[in-house]
């Protein structure tokens, strides 16, 4: 074995530790029997998790977040689907610029998106802030992600299948439902999951656009300034981390199973 091999492996392991270390401390301290997140650990307890069940405002915020995330996932996938189809199936004039324009929300700081939407909603349309406005903001930032997932899936199968379907007498609508949609289903599912995760975790836009009701991240943020709420926050944080990780892994597995492409650069 050359020496370089060991060095890079060592680096990779240290890197993964650096990546996960701070995050994994959260469940450690959440299970620790103490008011502060400090070493040495005092003892094992699940009381932080047990007390969450009695915290009604937390449960309410959780329900709100789930509601928003589900609607955002569905809505942004439905909106991204025609756009992804149009961009992969037809050589649109100016398709390139449109595509890069669609990706803009990826690079605009979310605080700018947040304030810009705030301006439109309050100053121009004069709509009251509510959970609807949060959902609208989330749809806006989710669409680029959903589109890139859907497009990579749609690019993966042969367009001549669709031609064959119309040659055999299917209407465009039938072709979509009986051919394109089932083939794109893994992409659709991972797009839904991605929209859900992004919306569920998003903080800045929700912080700007929410009315009186809190989403879970906004609730968490409001709790962070109280030191005595720390154990509860840690417990909640650990649960969210586990939940997000499970969803991401599920999304990846579904996508991988749907796309047996062995091209390694095609991640």
């Amino acid at each position: 074995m050359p020496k370089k091999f060991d060095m890079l492996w060592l680096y990779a392991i240290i890197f993964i530790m650096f990546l996960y270390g701070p995050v994994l401390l959260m469940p450690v301290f959440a299970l620790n029997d103490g008011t502060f997140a400090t070493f040495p650990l005092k003892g094992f307890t699940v009381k932080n998790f047990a007390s969450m069940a009695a915290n009604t405002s937390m449960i309410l915020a959780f329900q709100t977040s789930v509601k928003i995330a589900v609607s955002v996932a569905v809505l942004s996938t439905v909106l991204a689907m025609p756009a992804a189809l149009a961009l992969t199936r037809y050589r649109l004039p100016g398709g390139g610029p449109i595509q890069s324009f669609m990706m803009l929300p990826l690079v605009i700081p979310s605080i700018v998106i947040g304030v810009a939407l705030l301006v439109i909603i309050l100053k121009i349309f004069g709509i009251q802030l509510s959970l609807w406005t949060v959902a609208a903001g989330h749809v806006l930032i989710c669409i680029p992600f959903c589109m890139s997932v859907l497009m990579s899936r749609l690019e993966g199968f042969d367009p001549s299948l669709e031609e064959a379907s119309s040659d055999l007498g299917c209407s465009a609508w039938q072709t979509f439902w009986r051919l394109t949609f089932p083939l794109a289903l893994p992409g659709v599912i991972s797009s839904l999951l991605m929209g859900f995760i992004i919306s569920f975790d998003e903080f800045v836009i929700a912080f700007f656009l929410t009315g009186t009701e809190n989403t879970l991240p906004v609730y968490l943020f409001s709790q962070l300034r109280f030191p005595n709420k720390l154990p509860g926050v840690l417990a909640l944080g650990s649960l969210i981390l586990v939940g997000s990780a499970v969803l991401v892994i599920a999304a990846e597995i579904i996508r991988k199973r749907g796309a047996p492409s062995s091209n390694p650069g095609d991640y």
Partner: protein
Amino acid sequence: MILMLALPVAALVLLSFWTQNGFELDRTLTVENYAQLVRLSDEPTIWFGIPFYFAYPVPAILMLKSLVMSLTATIAVIALAYPMAYFLAFRITRNKAMWIILITIPFWTSYLLRVFAWKVVLGFNGAINSGLKAIGIIDQPLEFLLYNPGAVVVTLAHSWVAFAILPIYVSLEKIDRSLLEAASDLGDSKLRRFLRVTLPLSAPGTVAAALLVFIPTVGDYVTPTLVGGPGGTMIGNLVQELFLKQNNAPLGAAVAIMMMLIIAVVVAIFLWAIGYRRIRARRM
């Protein structure tokens, strides 16, 4: 769809030309907000030895500070991510998907929580301080860990590093392996081969990764708010404050627009300086 994206930005631009008049919004178009940002004064405000000849120097100072902080974080991210991407592309042969998932999971878990985790690590009673105290290395907690620009940079770097690996990895993966063999056959040492073949060929992905990290971090809000403390505020905090606390949305909009313009200019200068067109052309 295009309209949906263009509308918020257009509204922001429009708003930045209005003015706030107490509780009323004056809808006559004016450049007053921008004038306020660049109005000069004879009394310079000194910040770190740099004189700012502005009557209202806060935005300019915060902008410069944000650029420097995010540049530092970006450099750290690339330095950390490149070896890892190299490892993924050249060392891992089996279970590649598993490694990639392992690296991307933290990126998908809540940003807020990752930042908060650093607060737990670096805090006055945090993991590092209490850990070091428990094993007897220090008596007093180290106060310089949290609530300063350094903490913000560390947290930003950690939050974005997973994001930077993928573009670099993809461009490394695309390199034709026979080019590397050719370089070795023609007598290049491993280091020379890396510097003359691998590094230039992976430059587009590396540049893309740097931009993907740099652009959003300049305007980041969560990280400076949670771990920055009074000394670690960035331009995003100012925008938030102008909008929500000082109730001067038009000025906030002007600051946000200026921020985006300055980022665009910095990025353009950067791409021009490294000859990005040349790099891309070579890849073709």
